[in-house]
């Protein structure tokens, strides 16, 4: 029994450590670098002004919101039924490979492979919130 508790504790610790370090990595995300990446990789499809839809929805307040909840944009059935909330973990996964995270999403973007760049971009998306 004790063994199991020990094991569980170690696992919990590991997980917590992992989450923490992940959190630190994200905390290290550079908003300015993220803004630049956004310009080159996302701006052709996404505006950062609320309510301005382009090919994709405005990403002005997307952080922290449920996926496909921006009013006035015609989201894909796939994203609507994905039941995601946009936080660090979900954005990290989605931006790495949109089509494998949400098959049938109509965001045909092949993905952002670098974890550091995803961190920067997410930091930038966070910074748009409440602007």
């Amino acid at each position: 029994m004790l063994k199991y508790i020990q094991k569980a504790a170690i696992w919990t610790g590991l997980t917590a450590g992992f989450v923490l370090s992940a959190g630190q990595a994200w905390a290290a995300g550079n908003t300015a670098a993220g803004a630049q990446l956004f310009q080159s990789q996302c701006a052709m499809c996404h505006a950062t002004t609320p309510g301005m839809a382009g090919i994709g929805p405005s990403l002005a307040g997307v952080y922290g919101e449920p996926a496909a909840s921006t009013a006035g944009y015609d989201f894909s059935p796939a994203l609507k039924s994905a039941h995601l909330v946009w936080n660090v973990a979900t954005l990290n996964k989605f931006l790495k490979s949109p089509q494998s995270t949400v098959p049938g999403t109509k965001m045909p973007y092949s993905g952002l492979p670098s974890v550091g760049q995803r961190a920067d971009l997410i930091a930038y998306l966070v910074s748009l919130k409440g602007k």
Partner: protein
Amino acid sequence: MRNHLCLALPVALLAVLASTSVARSIPAFAAQTGEPCSACHIGFPQLTPYGREFKLEGYVAGGSVPGYKNFAAMSQAGFTYLHSKVPGGLAPEFPSNNAWSVQQTSVFYGGALYAPIGLGAFIQGTYDGVAHQFHWDNLDIRLARPTELADKPVFYGFTVNNAPSVTDLWNAPPAWGYPFIPDSLAVGNAAEQQISALAQSVLGVGSYAAVNVTLNDMVYSEVDLYRPLPNHTAYALGVGPEVSVAGVIPYWRFALQHSWSANSIEVGTLGLADNPYPAGFSQGPTDHLRDLGADAQFQWIKPNQAVSAQALFIHESQDWAASYPLGATQNLHDTLNTLTLTASWLGAQKFGVTESYNTVFGSRDKGLYAAAPVSGSANGSPLTNSLTSELDYYPWNEGGPAIFPWVNAKLFIENTTYLRFNGRARNYDGAGRSATANDILFTGIWLVF
């Protein structure tokens, strides 16, 4: 088999024309994605970076399973004027000049077959109003999967298709290249390369991969293996008689794409090899034809205007190992080359201008290009040079008329001038016809709904 172009049409039209939510709700890809056609197309049938990604990812984006929205129809009607009439008619049952025609009427399916696994399709059937028959047109069914290679995003996939280069993402290769509006009542020049001639007469399987080596650089490669359709199948699909080719026909494609801000540039190469039987044979010794090409494309796309340019050069080497001993060709070896340069501008999603220069040149061979009034060559040369200008207007960019709001249209005027035709500027056919006699004005409308 030039009708294949119309496949792109509905999608392209959609792209350019659709704008209101109603307008975009019928034509298939636009309906599936909820995007205006202009998201994926600049003019017809050119793909934007988004359009390329959509095709690469298997036509599934925004879709799930087939629905009525995935079906669409298209029709092209127009008026053809030639500089000099063609005695006997522009085509059977057509006048010798000044002909009205409904050249193509197509139905097509476009979009996801089963999105969760990346299975999607582009399938077109066309009624040819000049030949008066129905035939299968462009077909591309694909399964696309995302993965990673050395930490780089990769899309790879498999395709079943019926024309070399119908799978292509860029608009220089033949299937989706210029001329964007072929007139099937035009006087056709004598020479055609295999890569174009095989369209819809073959069925093939292929695989492709696109690796994003950096955020702005993509490497694309594709290999397809085709087999000619058996004769009865070719007739059943409206493309008979069969093309008589031995064994499998490999086709390959390799391209690099670099993008920055509103620009993208592509350079690539493509090739095909086949071993056709001499005319009238379906077994025994074969000839050997090899097509090797290079292409490039540039695009600059802004919301209110876009500029693009394409270049394509294809060299065909012809080894007439079987035809020459039969006396069907004059030489044992010939070459046939084509060069096409195209530039277009699209303004305000309403006005389009395209200019193109096309040249066909190669060995003289009186067996291949025999003298005959209008269609033949007096000196056995395939040399044909032409300049084409196309003006387009999209009247219903903000949605169709109230009674028929989902209709989209493109009005076009296209003029082609021949500097040389089948070898010469004057008396090219030996019967006194000059190249400019084939100059052609084609004007009409494309409707899609």
